[in-house]
């Protein structure tokens, strides 16, 4: 089953590399994503009934921490594929997507899903790095797919910044390997996370400190932590909207996951809270800086990209605090943010296509032309801003109460940032949704099921977390420890 999860998207990218220019390619894309999703569901069932599992000489490892991210990744991959069907049809009619670009887009989309799944399932920290770099490469191609000056600029910046950042992570991995080799020996297995986890208390603290510093800069760049966040708004704003949705919904999550795996090892080796303090500091900085940048944005996709930085900062802060409750909140926040943010991008995608612009001042009165898109955007924005009863409220509430108890100094900053974010996003979205209209209807009906499925799941997680999911989160939160 595990191999099937990887084989389907890989096969999909090969098939679509040859057929991606045809009209049916959009449906093939959905079909492959559906296949991946079903395979991950089966894999999840296997893990729930049989516990953590290894495969292929222990190179792959599925445990409670990555199995839920795996399902989430495959799910968002599927809904984004569904959303991209009508979206890409409109882009083709507008002449922005030629058949060649369509082929590139579809093939790279599947390949991106493949790299995400590999990064999640691998037990080998070296392969994790390789998969993250490959994910960067595929998304660079996806961001630049329109070939406009702005998208080329965004893609180049993205490549250079993330290339440099992730190179630091490779150096960190080398140092980690060096520390592990002394304990485990060179006979293979010194980069396998489970082996490292077993001997983490014996790893040399000096090397691990330096290794974590490099790993943190490296994967932190991909998480979009301030001050390494510069690539993120550009890449979100200039690429096609389905790409913005997967960047926010999947890539950032997987980068946080990489950081978590490294943090567990560092905590075990150091016996001091250095990793947590670094994560808290940079997390808080990201929340604050992103909240204030939010108020200065004119482009709708840029604004929601900054909101992603803010939420990633919040998640990093939560995991930095550590402990079962904060970790639980961090995991929950990862899930709801991923669902709701990609849902928002779906709605934003349809809205910008209808308005023919991404400038917020020129998008007015969505609710008159298309009530469903308007409501999707309004509800999505309220959800992401942490209004009850959506899931973001639950996780932010947990993070804030834990912060008050354990890190009281940080609470005023968090509240301030959340307040500023609320004011800036709400005051922008409100006139876009209501008011006199400036947008025209499109020929193709938008795909609204993904938007409302995502919002519905986000709502459900706010009101009621199913017991097995709850048990999962608890288990994973205990594993992260801290």
């Amino acid at each position, binding site marked *: 089953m595990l191999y099937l999860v990887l084989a389907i998207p890989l096969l999909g990218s090969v098939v679509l590399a040859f057929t991606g220019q045809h009209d049916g390619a959009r449906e093939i894309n959905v079909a492959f994503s559906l296949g991946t999703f079903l395979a991950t569901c089966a894999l999840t069932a296997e893990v729930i009934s049989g516990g953590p599992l290894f495969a292929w000489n222990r190179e792959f490892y599925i445990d409670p921490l990555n199995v839920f991210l795996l399902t989430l990744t495959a799910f968002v991959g599927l809904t984004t594929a569904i959303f991209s069907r009508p979206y890409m049809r409109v882009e083709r009619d507008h002449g922005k997507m030629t058949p060649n670009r369509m082929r590139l887009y579809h093939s790279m989309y599947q390949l991106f899903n493949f790299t995400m799944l590999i990064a999640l399932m691998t037990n080998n920290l*070296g392969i994790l790095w390789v998969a993250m770099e*490959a994910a960067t490469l595929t998304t660079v191609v996806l961001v630049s797919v329109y070939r406009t000056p702005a998208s080329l*600029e965004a893609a180049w910046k993205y490549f250079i910044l993330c290339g440099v950042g992730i*190179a630091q992570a490779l150096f960190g991995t080398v140092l980690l390997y*060096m520390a592990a080799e*002394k304990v485990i020996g060179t006979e293979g297995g010194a*980069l396998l996370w489970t082996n490292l986890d077993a001997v983490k208390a014996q790893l040399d603290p000096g090397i691990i400190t330096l290794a974590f510093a490099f790993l943190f800069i490296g994967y932190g760049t991909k998480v979009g932590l301030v001050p390494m966040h510069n690539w993120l708004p550009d890449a979100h704003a200039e690429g096609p909207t389905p790409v913005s949705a997967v960047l926010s919904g999947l890539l950032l999550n997987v980068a946080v996951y990489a950081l978590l795996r490294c943090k567990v090892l560092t905590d075990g080796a150091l016996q001091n809270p250095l990793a947590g303090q670094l994560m808290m500091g940079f997390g808080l900085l990201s929340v604050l800086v992103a909240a204030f940048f939010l108020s*200065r944005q004119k482009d709708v996709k840029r604004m929601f990209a900054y909101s992603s930085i803010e939420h990633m900062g919040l998640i990093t802060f939560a995991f930095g605090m550590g402990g079962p409750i904060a970790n639980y909140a961090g995991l929950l926040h990862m899930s709801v943010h991923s669902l709701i943010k990609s849902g928002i991008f779906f709605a934003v995608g349809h809205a910008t296509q209808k308005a023919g612009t991404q400038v917020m001042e020129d998008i007015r009165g969505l609710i008159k032309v298309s009530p469903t898109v308007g409501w999707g955007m309004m509800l999505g924005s309220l959800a992401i801003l942490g209004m009850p009863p959506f899931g973001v409220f639950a996780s932010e509430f947990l993070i804030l109460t834990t912060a008050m108890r354990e890190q009281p100094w940080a609470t005023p900053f968090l509240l301030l940032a959340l307040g500023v974010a609320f004011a800036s996003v709400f005051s922008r979205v409100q006139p876009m949704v209501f008011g006199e209209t400036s947008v025209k209807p499109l020929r193709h009906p938008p795909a609204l099921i993904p938007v409302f499925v995502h919002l519905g799941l986000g709502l459900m997680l706010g009101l009621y977390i199913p017991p097995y999911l709850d048990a999962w989160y608890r288990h994973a939160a205990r594993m992260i420890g801290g």
Partner: protein
Amino acid sequence: MMSELVGQLINLLAAILLMLSFAMISQRRILSLIHLFTAQGAILVAATLLVGYATHQPHLYVSAGITLVLKVILIPLLLHRVINRLDVRWDVETLINIPMTMIIGIALVIFAFNLALPISKLSVSIARGTLGIALACVLLSFMMMITRSKAVPQVIGFLSMENGLFFAATSATYGMPMVVELGIALDVLVGILILGVFMFHIREEFDSLDISHLEKLRED
């Protein structure tokens, strides 16, 4: 006795690698940059072979072979083709203050040595003294990417950073596991292909390969 000699040789190669990095940050001509990058790759191959010979790690021969094919033959060939097709072979970058970059570069090297000193002591590898040099090479290439405004030198900076990382892996740990090394090599190759294609698009859209033209997307 023998291993001492090999150790000295590796240190010598590391020193050459560092000198090449300095030559790169102060080199204005694109063509010479590519030559320097090729030379760096060749030194890397020699160092990997030596470490492999001294420590009887046959998999290092394989990784030396990959480096030879990738960094001494394939990538320089690609870069030559790109600069020929783009007609930037004789381009000279004027906007760098060489004395200043040199001074910052020296500061970076001292910083790298200090950072690596406690760790080098712990390493059991024959080439442990070279970890500081590897880190210095990474930082110097990092600086090169920041100071250059043209696309090709930025890419060469990126590749030379990867060289530094590779050297760190060989000198500190006798190389990463084979799967990882193959994956990294694949990533680098695909990355350079994508960047090569990009340069043509950038040139088409901006009529120039000067990245400082790429400044439209700024915070306002």
